[in-house]
């Protein structure tokens, strides 16, 4: 929280806020590895740990956007590596339709992103966060689903 205050302190400089849903067994461990390895990545990302990418209800993505995050990243184990055998494979079908319908409704490409990161890919995790932050930063603040007061 302290961090987010630092990010938003200077209101003239907008910084994207990104929410990342990481599966417990691969991607979260990958993020952990990036931390242990002292790898740098942008502080714009807020991580939420979920048991499996199959746990991710499409509503998490909608709600995040509605609450005003600028980007959503969903990450799970590589196909074949799922701790629950097939959670990520079932989720993949759901995500494919979700992504298409979001873009169809006019949510910018790149606003919601999906990736596979294993527990051994700390380096890749920091790289992905860098890329996502850059892409979302280029899109500007999220206006979709946000309730205007």
């Amino acid at each position: 929280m302290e961090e987010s205050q630092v990010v938003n302190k200077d209101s003239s400089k907008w910084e994207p806020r990104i929410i990342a849903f990481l599966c417990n067994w691969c991607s979260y461990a990958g993020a952990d590895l990036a931390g242990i390895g002292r790898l740098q990545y942008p502080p714009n990302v807020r991580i939420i740990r979920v048991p499996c990418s199959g746990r991710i209800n499409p509503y998490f993505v909608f709600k995040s956007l509605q609450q005003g995050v600028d980007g959503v990243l969903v990450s799970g184990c590589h196909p074949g590596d799922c701790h629950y055998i097939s959670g990520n494979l079932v989720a993949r079908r759901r995500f494919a339709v979700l992504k298409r319908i979001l873009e169809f409704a006019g949510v910018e490409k790149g606003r919601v992103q999906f990736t596979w990161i294993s527990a051994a890919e700390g380096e890749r995790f920091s790289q992905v966060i860098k890329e996502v932050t850059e892409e979302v930063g280029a899109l500007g603040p999220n206006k979709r689903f946000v309730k205007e007061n």
Partner: protein
Amino acid sequence: MQECEKELRKVAEKLLAEKKVDLIIGYEEGSLPIRTRPVFIQETGETSRLVWNSRCESNLCSYLKTIKGRVGIVAKGCDIRSIVGLVKEKQIKREDVFIIAVPCAGIIDRKKIEDILDGRELLEGVENDSQILLKGEGFEEKVDKDKLVHASCKSCGHRNPVLYDTLIGKEISQPEIGECSDLEEFASKPGDERWAYLNSEAAECIRCYACRNVCPACYCPQCFVDQSLPTWFGRTPHPSDSLIFHMIRTLHTAGRCVDCGACSRVCPMNIELRMLNKKAEKDVKELYHYEAGINLEELPPMATFKMDDPQEFIK
């Protein structure tokens, strides 16, 4: 059409007399002109109430989920696809349903008739094979049925039943159905425009959930929007909440929706969000080569997976 009706009544009478079914669900003339309503017949001798015409709009399958016993149901092409879906998802047993199939060339969209009437009161409507005669005080108008066909029926590729126990009448010709042109046109618009359109439609929504209640594919004992521990879905009629509701419903029915059009027919606000369902239907077909309600064997696409499913969208 008259013959169809006669045959339908005969079949229904026989089914009840032979005790093959406990109940027949069908259509009867409604109390308002040009409207039909669902009818539930348990006794022989009452089957003369049954009608069949292009105003039999309801998808009666929604009743199957709550009725116990063996039921005979009068079903159109789309209704039968709904039944196939329900059987596949183990909501009903195939042997409990006796499908009385009627080939259907399209249902009349009564909202289009309301547009033609433009506030005038309709006192009588007479239908023949190609036209419908609208009568009221001081006016009489003949309208071609082709002009009144419901949007879902225009893009229907299954006028003839995919599965049935008995067929009423003969199979009819099935025109070639291409890509949904409305959908392509809409998809080619800029994102902002698409967003603005969907938002303006969602802004009309009063969250009555009629679309969900009538949907044959919506049968969760507790719908996601009704969850209250915690109440985590926005339940206000704010366009953002409403659009999310409709989009999640689209995702829930992706690969299951048969585009029967029941949701758009019951909408009291005439919201036009069929586009979302058509889009999901198209995506599922493209990605997983699956069409809802065609056969009893294939698993619903969202209930299964393949190792080599497309994943070009994943980084």
